[in-house]
């Protein structure tokens, strides 16, 4: 019996999840081996597929549990873009998390749900139909909660409650939209154009709005973003998962699927849906940055930064033009690499130096040079300094704005860049140019924490500097855009 590739890809995280739940706390080596093995296998599978898919191949696996219900997994270029990001970052986060937690309690539960989260994200990436997407999207919601509340103290439980408080109504909206849509169109398959049939234009608009509400909550689009800063109560690996590997990205990816594959570019313009979405994304970009300015806790500032940065992706998609789409898709990867670097660093500052607030960063640069260099690279990338990844994204987004006849996008980008600088540069200044406070001690004698951080930072640097290479995220995004616009 041969297992179809998409299912195999799913199993690389599902099997470790299922087994890990039943492992005793003491089985550290077996548990670590399972997680690492699954992550490595997944990366290997993806690398093997990359070239085939670049050449136009796609893989499919379907299951119809009931008439009218279709579970469809399909690996196409867009799916591969997202799944490779999440797979590589999963590997890094796993190494980091093993070192971060050491022998702390409840690790089987943690790694079980962690792998389950990644399995759900893989499912989201590979979903070939809207219904399948929803199933995995909800699986992600549920498996994230125990991670957010992992510490089981009052702030963590409050964060978990807040997360569900946002997630549940929004997934109800999503389900409502899917049922409404599919009762008129039949199953929505991403690879095939959706036949909207008799649905009135306003009904279509309402469905679109509900879908965006459902996806936008995870993508932390204002005003559905409140859960994300609260969730910084969770341990650093969870933050990495929320901000880079899985959750927020899944939301953004969902928006891409809705715009790109459910409605399609032509219908988006026909119904006039692009502009409102772009405006919403712009508001989020600016609001997130403004709020980040006011935060004194490192992780909270980073969280608001994510709110802002993820909407770059949404902005790119909503502008409906090749350049903008390339910028948005590339930013999916770019932002992930940069933000995971920053959260890894924040975790190291906390663990090794006890620093949670930005005042504590004073003079840490020379004492923790590796960490601080990575942090600086990530921050500069976020600001958009050439040749970092963020620069590439912003250039394409700006060009896209012009191409789509929305020059105001340039103003949004400029304002955002200024704000990025305003909330990141003071941190760098403190790290490198302030005198250290005498009571703050810090060291980097934790290679398993530092190594993944360095790899992530190098990745963030590399995807920007080598954007012109044939297998860069930009190249992949260009490939996708070409397929969308060139028949």
């Amino acid at each position: 019996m041969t297992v179809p590739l998409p299912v195999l890809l799913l199993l690389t995280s599902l099997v470790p999840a299922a087994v890990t739940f039943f492992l005793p706390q003491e089985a550290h080596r077996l548990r670590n081996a399972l997680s690492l093995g699954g992550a490595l296998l997944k990366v290997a599978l993806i690398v093997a597929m990359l070239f085939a898919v670049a050449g136009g191949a796609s893989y499919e696996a379907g299951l119809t549990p009931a008439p009218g219900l279709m579970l469809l997994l399909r690996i196409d270029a867009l799916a591969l873009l997202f799944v490779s990001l999440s797979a590589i970052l999963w590997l890094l986060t796993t190494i980091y998390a093993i070192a971060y937690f050491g022998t702390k309690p409840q690790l089987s539960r943690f790694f079980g749900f962690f792998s389950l989260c990644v399995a759900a994200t893989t499912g989201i990436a590979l979903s070939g139909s809207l219904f399948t997407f929803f199933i995995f999207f909800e699986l992600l919601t549920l498996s994230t909660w125990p991670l957010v509340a992992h510490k089981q103290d009052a702030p963590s439980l409050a964060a978990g409650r807040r997360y569900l408080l946002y997630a549940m109504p929004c997934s109800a909206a999503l389900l409502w939209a899917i049922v409404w849509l599919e009762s008129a169109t039949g199953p929505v398959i991403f690879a095939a154009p959706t036949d909207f049939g008799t649905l009135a234009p306003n009904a279509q608009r309402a469905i679109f709005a509900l879908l965006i509400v459902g996806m936008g909550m995870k993508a932390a689009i204002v005003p559905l973003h409140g859960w994300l800063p609260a969730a910084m109560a969770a341990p650093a690996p969870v933050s990495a998962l929320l901000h880079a590997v899985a959750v927020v990205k899944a939301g953004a990816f969902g928006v891409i699927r809705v715009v790109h594959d459910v409605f399609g570019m032509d219908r988006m313009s026909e119904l006039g849906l692009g502009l409102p979405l772009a405006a919403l994304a712009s508001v989020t970009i600016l609001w997130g940055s403004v709020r980040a300015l006011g935060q004194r806790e490192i992780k909270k500032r980073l969280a608001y930064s994510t709110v802002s940065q993820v909407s770059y992706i949404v902005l790119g998609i909503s502008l409906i033009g090749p350049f903008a789409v390339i910028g948005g898709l590339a930013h999916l990867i770019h932002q992930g690499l940069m933000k995971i670097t920053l959260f890894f660093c924040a975790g190291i500052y906390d663990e090794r130096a006890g620093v949670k607030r930005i005042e504590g960063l004073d003079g840490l640069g020379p004492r923790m040079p590796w960490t601080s260099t990575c942090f600086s690279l990530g921050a500069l990338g976020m600001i958009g300094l050439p040749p970092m990844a963020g620069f590439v994204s912003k250039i394409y987004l700006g060009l896209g704005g012009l191409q789509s006849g929305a020059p105001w996008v340039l103003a949004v980008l400029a304002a955002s860049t200024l704000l990025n600088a305003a909330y990141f540069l003071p941190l760098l200044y403190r790290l490198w140019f302030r005198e250290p406070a005498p009571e703050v001690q810090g060291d980097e004698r934790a290679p398993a924490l530092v190594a993944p951080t360095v790899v992530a930072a190098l990745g963030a640097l590399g995807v920007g500097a080598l954007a012109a290479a044939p297998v860069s995220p930009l190249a992949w995004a260009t490939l996708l855009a070409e397929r969308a616009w060139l028949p």
Partner: protein
Amino acid sequence: MNALVVLLTLPLGGALAAVAFPAGVARGAALAAAAGTVAAALAVASEVAAGAPPRIALGGWPPPLGIALAADGLSAALLVTTAAVMAAVLLAARHTMAAGLAGPRIAFGFWPLALMLWAALNAVFVSRDLFNLYVGIELLSLAAVGLVAIGGKPEALAAAMRYMLFALAGSLLYLAGVALIYAAHGALDIDLLASRRPSGTDALALALMTAGLTAKTALFPFHVWLPPAHAGAPAPASAMLSALVPKASFVILLRLWTEALPDEASPAALTLIGALGVAAVVWGSLGALAQSRVKLIVAYSTVAQIGYLFAVFPLLPLAQAAWSGVIFLALSHALAKAAMFLAVGQWMAAAGGDRLEELRGLAQAMPMSAFAFALAAVTLAGLPPSGGFLGKYMVMTAAFTAGQWVWALPMALGGLLAAAYLYRPLAALFAREGASVAAPSRARQAVPLALAGGGIALGLASAEPLALLANGQPPIQAVVR
């Protein structure tokens, strides 16, 4: 020997043995009968699935003289679910209802009452005769009342009394309807009634039967007896009462409205039932939110979940998916609710009570039963990939395809409310602090986990149950009067 006959007689025989023999033997006989009944339920389901649904004219007398028994997809699905729940309940009870823990009185009474309840459920699920159904639900009600009272506390006795009054009034109203049916048609068989010459009195008969059965099912506004009764019984009894007992009267209602008298199902009447269902969803959920004892939360949740089942009624004549959807809701509720009560029973034994603050941190000591509760909560809130989700999805789709999206609202709203009221016990369990308690063994914790897993599996492997249900599914009414 015919599997259907075994299914009906083995629990009866087990109950008789449990009355006649001393406690130790009685328990053994009960468990043996249970094992055989589970096998018989599976055998009947496989016969139905193979396209050869068993049908018996008892005594060789075909209706209208005799009573016909028949298993269709609906019966088979309920029989198997009931078997799963009962097996888990009796396994759990093997320990908690033993004389050493529960005292000799309960150790005597629990087993015959549980088996009589099971026998009654099986009888109701396959009977095609309206009066035989009356005797079946009477047996069910009396066994259920006995199980409510078994704890012996004053609140339990008051709850049992209140339950008794509703059950008595409900039976007689149902019987009044049956009397009118017989008086008008000279027949009690569902299939004969489906092809009857309509009489002007049929609407009244249907109204009386519906009123009686909704009182027994605890549909709003007849729900007041349910929460104290279900919360007051010992955990294994609560599991049966909440998960299974309401399904019997519900199935009779479903058969009346879709099989026996579908032509009497006027839109106005269906809308009224649907509206009561919606009220039950809202009222039960708000009630659950207001409770601070987890058993009451779970019991109020049953009020809300019963509301779901009736909120689907307006869609039944309009869309095929509504019928399968509502049965999926009923089946997954049975599995999830039984899992919840069994898990709560283990916590109560460990922590000494079921107030939310007493449960704080119990997930530490009992991770498996806590996980069981969480999975059951996923099912009740209708989140994927559970059977509860699939049922909800089918009903919502039916509502939209029928152009009646209002009836999709209670599904969406109810799921949110369920998530809200089930979050509180979950958060309490998951809290960090927690006294060290004596946790039951992993094997015992696995019992509720298996049930809750069944609720999830119903969604993951939905093809087989859906194919099963298609056997004998009543056609929808093409023309709505």
